[in-house]
């Protein structure tokens, strides 16, 4: 069971109050991109054993989207942060580095 803290309303709720929304920090390729880019955007998702960055929605609450950094093995939640960011904030990266030295996730590490 995950306990996530919604950065929009400050509620620390358990998993069933939220809805998972897949991978975070996706770069979208739509009209104007080539087939390979679109294919990769649609199908090539991260599925790591370890550190993962995900989108979540506070579905049974304030209804807002946010991003979360967590570990798929230990189920530890490193932190949650605003959806309006291009990369995880430094304090969350530091927290992950302290627990999982040498971690990397797509272009972040």
């Amino acid at each position, binding site marked *: 069971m995950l306990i996530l803290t919604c950065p929009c309303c400050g509620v620390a709720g358990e998993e*069933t109050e939220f809805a998972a929304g897949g991978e975070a920090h996706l770069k979208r390729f739509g009209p104007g991109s080539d087939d390979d880019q679109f294919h990769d955007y649609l199908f090539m998702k991260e599925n790591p054993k370890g550190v993962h960055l995900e989108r979540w929605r506070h579905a049974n609450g304030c209804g807002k989207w946010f991003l979360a950094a967590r570990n798929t093995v230990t189920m530890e939640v490193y932190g949650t942060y605003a959806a309006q960011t291009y990369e995880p904030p430094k304090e969350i990266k530091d927290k992950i580095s302290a627990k999982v030295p040498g971690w990397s996730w797509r272009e972040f590490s």
Partner: protein
Amino acid sequence: MSDAVSPLNGAKYEGFVTVKAMGLQGMITFRGDLSAAKVKKAVKTVAGTDMPGQRECHMSGDTGVAWMSPDELLIFVPYADVDAKLDELHKALEGQHFLAVNVSDARAMFHLEGNGAREVIAKLSPVDMSPNAFGPGEIRRTRLAQIPAAFWMPDTTSVQIVCFRSVAEYGFNLLKTAAEPGSEVGMFA
């Protein structure tokens, strides 16, 4: 005109707490920039209370304001005054980007009264209901078993719950079951 009727028409259940389906209550859902001075002022004139902070709920009787999300409020007014209050809001906020809609007939409200009120909620929602974690003046949007709901505590032994009208009966049955005599857990006693 037809008579407006609350979803369960005042149904009542006496368990280890009293579960009551409440009558008609005027509710306005408001979305906009809650930090704008104009919005704060308009909300205050309509609801008669100050703008609530994050997860706060300012209620007195059947008027008040509840914080629903960073850009959403639920304004409570007497049922008969909804249209007038909506007009007032629209006039006060002319030119501002906002949305205010009458949702009175789209919601159902319940009232729990008794020492075990916290416990009934704790059985149904994934919320820490201990007195030092949740108390009067706060509102919590969450789920009640399988339906979305929000609740607040008018005082330390009662809870008021609001959910969608379409699931009013489900909600009432849930509360009835959780309040059945003999099913007390005594967690917060």
